[in-house]
């Protein structure tokens, strides 16, 4: 509240309106002041008040200017834009205002003084002095005559007593031509008098000083202004004391001055007095005028200085804004808009500036948004690429690897990041098995046309078949000459096709073979039953052995055909959510008390998420693997050990459960890993070669993968990975139970 009041007060005291009002008021006061010196009675009393008011107003103007100066100095010190320009404009305005006003003031004061001085002339002064002197001297001679006359008259009344003097005085007055004659006694009291004018009762009384002079023996003669009569000659003389009974008396005679003389004397007196007064008043008059003029000058100059401040500030404000705006634009801030000062050239400039920044801002925003779109597009493409199962690479004209996706690295089993930006030859030199791949790429790229090729790679992982497609890129200059290469690992696909073919063969074989087996067996048994007893013992033995062999082999063939049939048959899989650890525990229970001395090492991950699987198929899988391991170790080791380990793992956004089964048997002993899971591949005598093939089939039915590798201690190792149920959280507590 106080702050706001102060702010309003500040606005009132510093605003242009207040200064203008103050100036007008001061001007009005000056007008009244000058009026006061011109006898304008109504303002006479307020002269001092007016003067003080004006001085206070001037002090306020000075303080306002001082505040402005301080503010400008601070801005100048702070290096604010526009302060220098404001200072220059200010100095210019002040110089323009002050110099002419000062010149006018100087000449005004000079003119005023000369003008007032010119009213007066030394010669007139001298003439007036002379006329006064002449009047006095003219009167003086008459005064002397009259004094002499009166002194003689005094001798005549010297022996007259107060009582008798009255008649004598009348006579003397008439004789001398006096208008009034009075005899004063020793106590300066009128003893007797004679007055020409009968209306006047009381005689005129001289000044006490005259009586004092008389008592000292000095007679008096002088001009005197008598009330109601005008100028008269007053003569007062001492009456000689001729008798001892008489005191020192005085005789006063008033002699009239002739009308003409009086008129002239009055005129001389009046003119002299007026002129003298004017001469005397010359100095105060100059003082008054100069004071008023000086105050007017001060007011004008201070108002001009203040106006200069205001104007300079107003003029510079849009320029300062422009400077700040330009700096902001240079610093990259295009949102800056300047206030429009007025509808003039500067206003037009500011308007143009605002338009310019608005357009730049719009253009920048458009550019930014298109850049964002490009970025989004790129991110989208990168996402698509990284999630593609096909490998994608681009090579530039110099056969250097530019871009690639994750699948490319996986398919080629090489870290392509190491060769990014480098020649594709480096890839071949780092990975020998990719030599063929690189060779074909380069070969095809030279043709500069779209191509497709099947490439078979041989390496540690076995045979790998890639379908590779290349497209020379055209269009944008930057990528012109680059080649886009897309390739897919079709090994699994081919494998699946082969497996499917094998399954079909097995199914047909089983069907075709199984059908005649039963009649063969029944026929053999019937032969034996019918003819064994009726034959001689030698023949009977042959028949018995032969039919037994037939039946036995048919049985064996039936079992084999059933196994084929099992492999080929694909019963409906029943998926359910289950815990792999539980299934493993159940299966292992069957082998724990094995008489062959089998040792089981089980390490199950306690935090095991649930998987979606068919429990029966999983049991079959585990039985197959364990049996396989037991059979493999049967003849090679006395202390068979099977270790089972489960782990929950995560690899590139994909969670899965890993089951690792290792034995301490002879290992895969050079068996080709890729062929291990193919049907009818076996290293054991009497094996159908379908055990691992079924394992692989079950794993693939569950969307998992199976890998055979040699264990760290030389035994065989099978790694199975099954995907985790999507709905299953990371912290599945059910697995802990």
């Amino acid at each position: 509240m106080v702050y706001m009041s102060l702010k309003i007060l500040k606005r009132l005291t510093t605003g242009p309106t207040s200064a203008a009002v103050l100036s007008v008021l001061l001007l009005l006061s000056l007008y009244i002041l000058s009026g006061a010196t011109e006898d304008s009675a109504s303002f006479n009393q307020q002269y001092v008040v007016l003067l003080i008011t004006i001085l206070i107003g001037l002090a306020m103007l000075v303080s306002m200017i001082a505040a402005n100066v301080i503010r400008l100095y601070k801005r100048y010190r702070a290096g604010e834009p526009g302060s220098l320009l404001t200072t220059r404009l200010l100095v210019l305005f002040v110089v323009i205002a002050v110099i002419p006003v000062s010149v006018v003031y100087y000449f005004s004061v000079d003119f005023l003084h000369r003008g007032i001085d010119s009213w007066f002339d030394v010669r007139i002064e001298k003439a007036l002095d002379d006329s006064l002197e002449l009047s006095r001297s003219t009167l003086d001679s008459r005064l002397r005559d009259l004094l002499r006359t009166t002194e003689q008259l005094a001798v005549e009344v010297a022996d007259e007593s107060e009582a008798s003097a009255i008649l004598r005085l009348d006579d003397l007055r008439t004789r001398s031509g006096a208008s009034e004659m009075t005899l004063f006694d020793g106590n300066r009291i009128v003893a007797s008098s004679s007055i020409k004018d009968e209306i006047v009762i009381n005689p005129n009384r001289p000044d006490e000083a005259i009586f004092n002079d008389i008592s000292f023996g000095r007679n008096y003669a002088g001009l005197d202004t008598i009330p109601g009569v005008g100028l008269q000659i007053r003569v007062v003389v001492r009456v000689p004391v001729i008798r001892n009974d008489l005191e020192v008396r005085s005789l006063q005679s008033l002699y009239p001055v002739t009308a003409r003389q009086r008129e002239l004397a009055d005129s001389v007196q009046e003119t002299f007095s007026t002129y003298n007064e004017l001469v005397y008043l010359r100095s105060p008059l100059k003082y008054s005028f100069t004071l008023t003029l000086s105050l007017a000058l001060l007011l004008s100059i201070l108002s001009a200085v203040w106006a200069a401040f205001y104007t300079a500030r107003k003029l510079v404000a849009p320029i300062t804004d422009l400077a700040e705006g330009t700096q902001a634009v240079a610093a990259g801030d295009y949102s800056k808009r300047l206030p429009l000062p007025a509808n003039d050239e500067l206003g037009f400039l500011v308007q143009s500036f605002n338009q310019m920044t608005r357009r730049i801002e719009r253009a920048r925003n458009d550019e930014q948004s298109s850049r964002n779109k490009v970025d989004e597009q790129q991110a989208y493409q990168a996402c698509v690429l990284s999630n593609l199962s096909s490998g994608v690479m681009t090579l530039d004209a110099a056969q250097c690897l530019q871009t690639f996706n994750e699948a490319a690295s996986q398919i080629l089993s090489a870290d392509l990041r190491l060769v990014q930006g480098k020649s594709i030859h480096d890839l071949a030199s780092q990975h020998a098995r990719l030599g063929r791949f690189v060779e074909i790429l380069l070969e095809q790229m030279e043709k500069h046309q779209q191509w497709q090729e099947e490439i078979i790679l041989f390496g540690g992982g076995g045979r790998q078949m890639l379908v590779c497609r290349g497209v020379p890129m055209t269009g944008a200059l930057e990528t012109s000459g680059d080649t886009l290469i897309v390739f897919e690992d079709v090994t699994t696909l081919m494998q699946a096709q082969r497996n499917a073919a094998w399954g079909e063969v097995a199914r047909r074989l089983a069907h075709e073979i199984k059908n005649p087996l039963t009649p063969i067996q029944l026929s053999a048994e019937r032969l034996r039953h019918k003819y064994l007893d009726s034959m001689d013992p030698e023949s009977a033995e042959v028949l018995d052995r032969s039919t037994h062999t037939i039946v036995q082999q048919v049985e064996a063939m039936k079992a084999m055909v059933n196994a084929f049939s099992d492999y080929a048959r694909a019963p409906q899989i029943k998926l359910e959510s289950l815990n792999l650890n539980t299934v493993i525990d159940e299966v292992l229970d069957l082998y724990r008390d094995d008489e062959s001395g089998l040792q089981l090492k089980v390490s199950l991950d306690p935090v095991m998420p649930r998987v979606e699987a068919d429990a029966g198929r999983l049991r079959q899988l585990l039985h197959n693997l364990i049996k396989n391991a037991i059979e493999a170790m049967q003849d090679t080791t006395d202390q068979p050990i099977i270790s089972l380990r489960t782990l929950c793992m995560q690899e590139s956004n994909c969670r899965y459960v890993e089951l690792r089964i290792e034995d301490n048997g002879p290992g895969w002993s050079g068996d080709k890993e890729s062929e291990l899971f193919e049907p009818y591949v076996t290293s054991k005598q009497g094996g159908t070669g379908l055990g691992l093939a079924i394992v692989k089939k079950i794993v693939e039915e569950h969307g998992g993968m199976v890998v055979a590798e040699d264990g760290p201690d030389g035994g065989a190792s099978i790694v199975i990975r099954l995907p985790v149920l999507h709905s299953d959280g990371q912290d599945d507590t059910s697995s802990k139970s």
Partner: protein
Amino acid sequence: MIAADFRVFGAHFRPYYLLTLALLLSTGKALALGVSIDAASTQNNKGVYQLNADIRYELSEEVLEALNNGVAITMQLTINIKRPRAYLWDKSIATLLQRYALKYHALSGQYIVQFLSSGKQRSYLSLASALRALGRVRELPILNQTVIQVPPNAVVHLRSELDTNALPAPLRPVAWLSREWKLRSEWFTCPLKS
């Protein structure tokens, strides 16, 4: 700024202007150096109250100079008759103004005292006798008992001063600003004798 002006136009200014300007900024308290009332009393003469007063006038150099240069000096005697009240300010019964003009008659070399209320005038050989005559107030009727009922405790306040407003116009600003021209007595109080 003002000082600079004085330097530039110094030839036209006199030092006392600075004094007057300084006076503007100081308190304008009236000084009673030149006029003082030595004594005052009243008497009742047949129902008319009369005032006797002895006032001493001592003119300053400035005033003397003006007087001798033909400027008429007007003195004003203000007489206030009041009834004192215990609980409020004094109640004014009557106010009387007596104005006297003192001027110099160059031709006769005498000083003339004129009673402005009556128009009567008298000339004096010297200024001292003129001032003496001016200060000797005798039997000045101030109140008629038959016109106004006067309470027994009424008092008379009187003060004499130089009337600056009666001066010629150009002299007024100087007179208002200069303490040389501030001739004014203190208020003198005497009882109104019945």
